[in-house]
């Protein structure tokens, strides 16, 4: 019978009821809802940003959602990645998020891509969608998504977050700028902080992901004027300040969206950015001489043999506070080059030497993954004035994560 009452549109009674509150919202209406119900959106990343983005787009009634993520759910994801459950630990994130979505709105078709988004896979995946959402967590993927959107002429809703802050903008929309117009050159690798190193709060990615979902809805429903293109929204959660600033328009000399582009197909973004399509740290390369390195197994032997030594943990103090090895001294890498720190280390060394004058003293440097402890070697090599006949400085390869993996799994993993 409902056909008698419903006219000139394709929404059925179920859809009218389900979407009623947004259907009666000004500037959505029947036309807007029909557009939503016909739209296809690709979300790259099913983490802190991807979860709220995909959940809100699904509940708003998009027709097809694509979700790309190579990773699996871990317990340490759950404080912010609200589309996953404890029971999904170990399950691919794309699948876990798709399952949550289906339990909320079974009308949505969800395509999952349990793969790394790369130059080889991007264009083939993107071609099935109208709009792309960047909910990734690394520089290389951000440049890749941008170029793929420019080359396939799709708008890109970009969000990012770290610690207490987030940023949102829309690229490649209605002749607006692309990511490369604003950031033509990738940042130096050691200026990039990852969430796994700097931390991030759940509500921060929640806010930013929600804003990305809203911008996507505005693009779909053709509410063009308010779309966050040519502007950047910055959220400082600690100060409770939102700012929207004007950024440059499309740049005619941009290497991908400019008038004479030099990037006309996808390139190798890991090479361009000198980093991986992942924020996962992986094993740290050796950057110091072989004789400056000991393994966690060798350090374990040092402890067992009761050998006189000094252990310096160079992590930030707020990480040292979480957990540390017995008898370690915390001198964070950020301050280790200060004279005060050097004086303290020299005193610690002298005390140890005086307590056991016969043998050489080993100083071991430790951090979370065995990365910063290598920087510390170089700094101490340069600054310590104590004679090297008496002191040998080494860093512990793979750090505390290695200790957790190979020596004692009860050492907290974070």
């Amino acid at each position, binding site marked *: 019978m409902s056909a008698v009452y419903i006219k000139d549109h394709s929404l059925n009674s179920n859809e009218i009821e389900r979407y009623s509150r947004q259907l009666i919202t000004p500037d959505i209406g029947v036309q807007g809802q029909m557009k939503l119900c016909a739209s296809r959106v690709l979300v790259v990343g099913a983490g802190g940003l991807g979860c709220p983005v995909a959940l809100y787009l699904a509940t708003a009634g998009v027709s097809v959602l694509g979700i790309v993520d190579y990773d699996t759910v871990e317990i340490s994801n759950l404080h912010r990645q609200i589309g996953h459950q404890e029971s999904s630990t170990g399950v691919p994130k794309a699948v876990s998020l798709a399952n949550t979505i289906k339990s909320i709105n079974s009308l949505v078709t969800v395509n999952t891509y349990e793969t790394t988004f790369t130059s080889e896979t991007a264009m083939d995946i993107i071609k099935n969608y109208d709009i792309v959402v960047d909910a990734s967590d690394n520089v290389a993927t951000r440049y890749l998504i941008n170029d793929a959107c420019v080359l396939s002429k799709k708008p890109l809703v970009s969000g990012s977050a770290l610690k207490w802050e987030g*940023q949102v903008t829309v690229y490649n929309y209605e002749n607006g700028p692309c990511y490369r117009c604003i950031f033509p050159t990738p940042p130096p690798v050691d200026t990039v902080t990852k969430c796994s190193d700097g931390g991030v709060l759940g509500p921060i990615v929640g806010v930013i992901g929600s804003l990305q979902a809203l911008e996507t809805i505005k693009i779909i429903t053709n509410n063009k004027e308010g779309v966050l293109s040519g502007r950047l929204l910055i959220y400082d959660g600690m100060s409770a300040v939102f700012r929207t600033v004007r950024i440059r328009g499309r740049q005619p000399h941009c290497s991908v969206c400019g008038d004479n582009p030099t990037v006309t197909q996808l390139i190798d973004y890991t090479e361009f950015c000198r980093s991986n399509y992942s924020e996962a740290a992986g094993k740290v390369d050796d950057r110091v001489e072989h004789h400056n390195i000991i393994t966690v197994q060798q350090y374990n032997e040092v402890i067992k043999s009761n050998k006189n030594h000094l252990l310096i943990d160079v992590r930030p103090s707020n990480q040292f506070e979480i957990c540390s090895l017995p008898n370690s001294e915390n001198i964070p890498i950020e301050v280790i080059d200060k004279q005060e720190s050097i004086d303290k280390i020299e005193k610690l060394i002298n005390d140890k030497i005086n307590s056991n004058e016969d043998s050489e003293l080993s100083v071991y440097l430790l951090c979370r993954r065995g990365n910063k402890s290598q920087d510390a070697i170089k700094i101490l090599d340069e600054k310590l004035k104590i004679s090297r006949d008496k002191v040998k400085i080494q860093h512990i390869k793979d750090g505390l994560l290695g200790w957790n993996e190979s020596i004692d799994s009860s050492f907290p993993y974070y």
Partner: protein
Amino acid sequence: MKVTVDLSGGLELLFDKKKVHQIEFSDKNEIPLRELILYMRDNLLKERAELFVVDNTVRPGILVLINDADWELFGGIEYNVEDKDTITFISTLHGG
């Protein structure tokens, strides 16, 4: 002249963890932005300079705003900073 410098996206960590800095140049009416950046590097920076300045300009990945708008709209590093201007340095974020 007085200039307000705003830092965000983690750049404040290089500048004594302060997000807002007031800088006064009593002998000047304006100062080239490049000079302001080098002044900040030489006088305010507490940590590694290469995380802020490379080749006498801000490193890639930092967006500079002049009174809340992209510096590219005002000639970029060639802009002359005036009394009461607010210059914002934002490090772009990549996490998610």
